[in-house]
């Protein structure tokens, strides 16, 4: 019905538009009068739509109540709707994830606006909710898991969904912080993984950072005080700057910068390379959001209880100030402790070489035993 009304309105408006094009003499007041005549039609369409949506909700509610028996579980501020037989699993999993990864979140206003559903994806049931939060209808974040998935995989999924919901708390932070873009610190990658990224980053600042230079770490994070060419010189050596340009403009040297690019690449003029990099409309910071997120996560961990609220409150602060405010330690000290933990978590490529070698030894003994068992020393 609604669709028919809307089509009618559209056809009518098109008809009027054609008519208008032919009547150049038509006055503005006549036009307004004609458009106003459409209003009752539009109001009827809106009312039809609302009635239709209410009907769909009602049908969904009655269908869900017939098909699925669900319950609501609370883990701290988190509300989860789940089939009754999965209540225990939902409570345990969410509680464990919350305890391990969200300890710094004392209160999250964003969580009042969301609900989570939790159920097996291979035996899905309809879950309906018309719950409201302080600002109207809540957002529903579904967590569906395959019953064959390991607990670690399910927990990672829960963490990711929770982090997404809670991170809405930071949407009010200042432009500086948002432009710095630390990703989602509540779902930051592991320090082992961050170490690999840091070690692989092609930047003199990153190498200096790994050898213990805290200022270089701050600079590589984009928290340094230098700007413009000075900042790029801090981050990259002349050869690295040349490499950056060479990689970017390997195939094409067209456009208004073509002479500058040629001077940089062919004559290896670092001044020209720097000019291109300064003019480039892209973030050249060596450590991107995935590494920065680990620093913010570390700040939250150092700050302990209440650190999330403090970070949320730091709306007008620079990223450094926000980190200091959240962790309650000076930025240098925070970066030093982050670096210490990062180096501590260096992934060991051959970590399992010893136990695996022992296992190989056992297999070798097994084959040796087989060799003794089978024999050609037989007659006939």
């Amino acid at each position: 019905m609604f669709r028919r009304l809307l089509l009618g309105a559209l056809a009518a408006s098109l008809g009027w538009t054609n008519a208008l094009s032919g009547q150049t003499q038509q006055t503005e007041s006549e036009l307004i009068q004609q458009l106003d005549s459409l209003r009752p039609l539009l109001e009827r369409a809106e009312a039809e739509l609302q009635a239709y949506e209410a009907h769909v909700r009602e049908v969904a509610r009655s269908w869900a109540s017939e098909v699925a028996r669900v319950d609501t579980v609370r883990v701290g501020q988190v509300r989860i709707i789940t089939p009754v037989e999965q209540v225990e699993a939902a409570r345990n999993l969410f509680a464990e994830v919350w305890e391990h990864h969200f300890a710094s979140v004392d209160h999250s206003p964003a969580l009042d606006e969301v609900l989570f559903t939790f159920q097996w994806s291979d035996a899905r049931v309809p879950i309906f909710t018309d719950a409201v939060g302080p600002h109207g209808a809540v957002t529903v974040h579904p967590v569906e898991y395959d019953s064959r998935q390991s607990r670690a995989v399910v927990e990672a999924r829960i963490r990711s969904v929770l982090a997404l919901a809670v991170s809405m708390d930071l949407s009010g932070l200042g432009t500086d912080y948002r432009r710095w873009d630390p990703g989602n610190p509540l779902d930051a990658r592991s320090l082992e993984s961050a170490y690999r990224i840091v070690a692989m980053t092609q930047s003199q600042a990153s190498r200096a950072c790994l050898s213990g230079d805290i200022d270089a770490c701050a600079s590589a994070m984009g928290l340094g005080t230098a700007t413009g060419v000075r900042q790029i010189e801090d981050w990259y050596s002349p050869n690295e700057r040349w490499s950056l340009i060479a990689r970017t403009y390997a195939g094409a040297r067209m456009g208004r910068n073509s002479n500058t690019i040629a001077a940089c690449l062919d004559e290896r003029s670092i001044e020209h390379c720097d000019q291109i990099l300064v003019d480039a409309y892209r973030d050249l910071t060596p450590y991107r959001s995935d590494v920065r997120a680990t620093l913010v996560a570390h700040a939250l961990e150092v700050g302990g209880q209440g650190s999330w609220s403090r970070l949320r409150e730091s709306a007008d602060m620079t990223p450094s100030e926000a980190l200091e405010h959240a962790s309650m330690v000076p930025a240098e000290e925070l970066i030093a402790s982050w670096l210490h933990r990062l180096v501590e978590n260096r992934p060991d490529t051959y970590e399992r070489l010893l136990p695996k070698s022992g296992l190989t030894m056992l297999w070798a003994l097994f084959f040796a035993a087989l060799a003794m068992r089978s024999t050609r020393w037989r007659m006939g």
Partner: protein
Amino acid sequence: MYQPMLFLHWKQARTFLALAVVAAFALPLLASEGVGAPRGVDVSSLDAYRFGFEAWLPFFPALAILIGMTLALTAWNWDHRFDHVYALSLPVTRWQYTVQKMLAGVTLALLPAVGFWLGANVAAASIALPEGLNAYPNELAVRFFFAILLSYTMLFAAAAGTIRTTMWVAGVILCFVFFGNIANDFLGYYYDFFARENVVLIVFEWMFETAGPFEVFSGSWSLIDV
């Protein structure tokens, strides 16, 4: 008893072993040729250290398998050729004879492993590594030795038995690989477990990744990493 076994095995395999030692020494050197920063460019990216090396990666386990197989076959070659007369004339039991023979082979396997260890150390010393990256020549050499050991003992066991036993084992494995998937699909119609899982794949994953014998071949073979 061990010394004559070692001497016999050495006589059988010395030409191959000499080549194997040279190959094992040279392989890490060849693989690390041109790895790292090109002249005049400060490239510290791990990719720059992996790119050249990774092309050579399949040759590391392949060389280990080749050495292990050849040592295993040369261990029994002499016995098979002369119908085990020498072994049967000795005043030792079958298992004692097998153990001595196997230990002799393991001792010989140390030669290419040591060659590899020297080569890997020379290769690692020739690359200037930036902060954050490390060389693992010793760990790589340990992996290489265990890869030789495993392929040697497997083939040694196969060669020690009768041809019929070996054919049986090989036949069962081939049947499992070729008909396992068909059987799995068929059982999937009747049992939920088989509909969800592929047993052949599970067995292969176990053999190569979890606790099976072939993990030594599929694990990390990096000379340079973080």
